[in-house]
């Protein structure tokens, strides 16, 4: 039994599924190394570096490099 915040539980749930099935990927704004405003994916980037990809904000300039796939 662990005491987890709702935020930490999101990371645990995603990590549980990424470990189970390597075809599970996480793609989104602020989900990878840079961290998120919600910080809800903490640890996923480290636990499965090839499975998380950050996408740019729709309003950001193209130069704010989207990072697709493995870094």
């Amino acid at each position, binding site marked *: *039994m*662990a*005491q*987890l*915040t*709702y*935020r*930490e*539980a*999101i990371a*645990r*749930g*995603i990590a*549980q*599924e990424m470990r*189970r*099935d390597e075809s*599970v990927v996480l793609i*989104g704004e602020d989900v990878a190394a840079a961290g998120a405003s*919600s910080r*809800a994916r903490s640890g996923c980037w480290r636990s499965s570096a090839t499975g998380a990809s950050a996408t740019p904000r729709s309003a950001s300039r193209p130069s704010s490099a989207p990072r697709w796939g493995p870094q």
Partner: protein
Amino acid sequence: MTAGQMSFPLVVRSGNGGGLRFGAQHSQSVENWMMAIPGLKVVVPSNARDVVGLMAAAVRDPDPVVLLEEKALYPVRDEVPDGEIVDTLGTAAIRRHGVDATILALGNMTPRAIEAADQLDGAGIDCTVVDVRSLVPLDTQTILESVSDTGRVFTVEENPRLCGWGGEVMSIIGEEVFWDLDGPPIRITTPHIPLPAADALEDFALPSVERIVTTVQKAMSSSEGGIPT
């Protein structure tokens, strides 16, 4: 849509809801928008354990699932069992058993409904609290059985009143178990307004423990069973 020839196993995560003084732009409760789109499944966990279980269920589902993360609950700590946790989509959870009335709540409103039910118990009104958890698919069996048992039903909804999820649930209750009801179904919701940013106004707009308690108390004590004006 494709007669089962294609699946689309996508989970869309999104922050949801208010209470954090972010103003109308960043405080929407969009569960009712999501459930209005045919083909999408919609789940809203109310605690850390359910986040893991419903996330796993959503990821394993062959269809697109929207998982709404309640922003106001991010810092809330709960016990989560070790090991793999997998829930089933379309299952509600009964958080509290009572005989006088059923309170249906979702996401961030669930802890408030439970606290209100505890206070109501002290005032002699013993409520069941059903955590709806999944709007699509909806666990109508658990909801209807509880409403039939208690004879009174209330929803606690963070979404704006107009076209909120409780409207749909109450219409199902009206169609299916109308003759088991002992009084009018009553919805406790945020009004149909852009959510204010000011502390006092935001607190006033969102369903509070106090508003749940007083609404249920008034409805249960009125001879007509409604809310006295």
